[in-house]
């Protein structure tokens, strides 16, 4: 880029000129001081509840029960007692935290692996009824998962699987697959056909092409979907309480948090601290994997 950088004097002059195009005008409007102020106000408003939650989680139990978090400004008192109680105390969330991890990781890995294989087949292999089957798979997306919950649970009970992690893993996999296959199929499909042909001439079979050519090229898409699936499973409550009812030892964090504030909850001062513990993992996952969202891995393969 060799665009000239305007001098300050010129910049001032430019600021008074009305841009000719719509995008130019929009851009100018968006970069004005008032727009910035407006954006700042929205950002602050949106952040206040989270900030309040953070502050609450750090206040002593009695304060939480008797007054709102904003009173902290007149009577500043902070403690880590809630976190201590949440992680190591009698209500120990740490077990549930581990449960959440044990539930989430297979519930991401299994559907993503199956979806990759299925998408590759749907995108690049020829077999009878391929398109019909693909539409059928995607059509499953229409079925609301609430409809499937009870019948599924009965199947699990019949198979004597209830009380283990299997019902959770299997149901999360089932619910994720239609969308996963549809999304990944589109990404697999976008890989230029010449690459496939070049690999075939180079002596690669389907397995080699899948592992050595396709997977590296669609990694950003797989990572993006994996992140969404992770957040979905980690924050899921409905499937968790359905499939893990009465089985305390397999309940995830969300189920436990719901109980803290629920009818039997006498310890709801721990809720805010628990919520923050639960937020930490998704934030870490997002921060570390977000670079996979960046596209452009395909640049340079074929002309251009």
């Amino acid at each position, binding site marked *: 880029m060799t665009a000239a950088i305007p001098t300050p004097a010129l910049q001032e002059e430019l600021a008074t000129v009305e841009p000719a195009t719509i995008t130019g005008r929009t851009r100018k409007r968006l970069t004005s001081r008032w727009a910035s102020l407006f954006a700042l106000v929205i950002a602050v408003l949106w952040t206040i509840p989270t900030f309040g939650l953070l502050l609450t989680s750090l206040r002593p139990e009695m304060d939480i029960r008797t007054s709102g978090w904003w009173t902290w400004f007149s009577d500043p008192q902070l403690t880590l007692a809630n976190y201590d109680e949440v992680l190591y105390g009698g209500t120990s969330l740490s077990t549930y935290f581990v449960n959440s991890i044990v539930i989430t990781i297979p519930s991401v890995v299994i559907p993503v692996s199956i979806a990759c294989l299925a998408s590759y087949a749907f995108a690049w292999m020829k077999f009878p009824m391929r398109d019909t089957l693909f539409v059928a798979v995607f059509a499953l997306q229409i079925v609301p998962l609430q409809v499937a919950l009870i019948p599924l649970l009965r199947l699990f009970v019949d198979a004597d699987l209830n009380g283990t992690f299997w019902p959770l893993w299997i149901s999360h996999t089932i619910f994720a697959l239609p969308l996963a296959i549809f999304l990944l199929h589109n990404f697999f499909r976008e890989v230029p056909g010449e690459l496939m042909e070049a690999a075939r001439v*180079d002596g690669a079979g389907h397995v080699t092409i899948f592992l050595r050519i396709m997977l590296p090229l669609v990694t950003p898409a797989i990572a993006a979907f994996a992140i969404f699936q992770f957040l979905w499973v980690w924050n899921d409550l409905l499937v968790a309480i359905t499939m893990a009812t009465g089985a305390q030892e397999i309940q995830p964090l969300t189920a436990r948090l719901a109980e803290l504030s629920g009818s039997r909850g006498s310890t709801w001062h721990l809720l805010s601290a628990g919520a923050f513990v639960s937020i930490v993992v998704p934030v870490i996952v997002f921060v570390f994997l977000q670079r996979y969202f960046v596209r452009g891995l395909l640049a340079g393969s*074929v002309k251009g």
Partner: protein
Amino acid sequence: MATVTFDKATRIYPGTDKPAVDALDLAIEDGEFLVLVGPSGCGKSTSLRMLAGLEEVDGGAIRIGDRDVTHMPPKDRDIAMVFQNYALYPHMTVADNMGFALKIAGVSKDEIRRRVGDAAKLLDLTEYLDRKPKALSGGQRQRVAMGRAIVREPQVFLMDEPLSNLDAKLRVSTRTQIASLQRRLGITTVYVTHDQVEAMTMGDRVAVLNAGLLQQVDSPLGLYDKPSNVFVAGFIGSPAMNIATFDVKDGRATLGNADVAIPASIAAKVAEEGSDTVVLGFRPESLTPASSEETGGIPVLVDVVEELGSDAYVYGRPAGPAAEEQADRLRSDQIIARVEPRNAPQKGEKINFTVRQGSEHFFSVKTGERLEP
């Protein structure tokens, strides 16, 4: 090293009746550089892909050496292919790209490194071995694609318009590089292009295809001097041959006041066909300017003059008394003639051209086939 034989090889795409490649018969010698050329949609790429195993063969057979490869998957054919858009693996370095096939074949790491190194040296790519394709220029990518084929040391090289994404100058230099590289390696090569200049300059032999049918296979000069039908005559040569339908009468071919003497044998053949017209072709260099008094010439009004330094070409249209009829009977829009570059006419001038005796090509009006005197 091996020969390649197409034996009535046919490809019919699903949902169409007309074959994309119709009973192609072609024998390619060991170590030969054969160019498949034709207009777009003529089946040249399809033929190459049939040989590569990327396209099914619906009829006939294809053999590499003595092996029948008609229904073999690409990986068992011992071929290497260079694609039009190179198809480099974007996530691999240049070295990995070139060594990919060897790695799959289970060749040892040292051997891969040695062969990739050799090929890189040959193609001047040594300093780029650790780069990804996106950090290379078009010409370098093209060389990597070549390198990927070379390290395989295959029996046959297949190239599908490998130069069409390069700029004009690079294309000319790469053209000679590929041709000399092929001579040095001595590997049988099938090369597809739509550019007849590429075909003429690179190939030991050139096969001209049109509408899925093989028109003629010959050396570049053979095609130029003795095109076997009207299509080849019009396709080979740049600028193109002038082709028009002439009336045959009393041992002469006439069109308006243009008048060309024809051998008796041609006249006899035309008569034998029961026809009284003949298709006559003459290359731009067969036209010579004549004085205006001379009869039998074609008066041409000059529209454009292309001065190339070594040559000059006149593009014009008939301008004599019978101009309308002549323009109707002409297969192209213009008459093209080569003239003295230092003495080229001006735009708008009128020149009388005569066809140099013995340099005409005659074709049957009915079949389009060449008529030999």
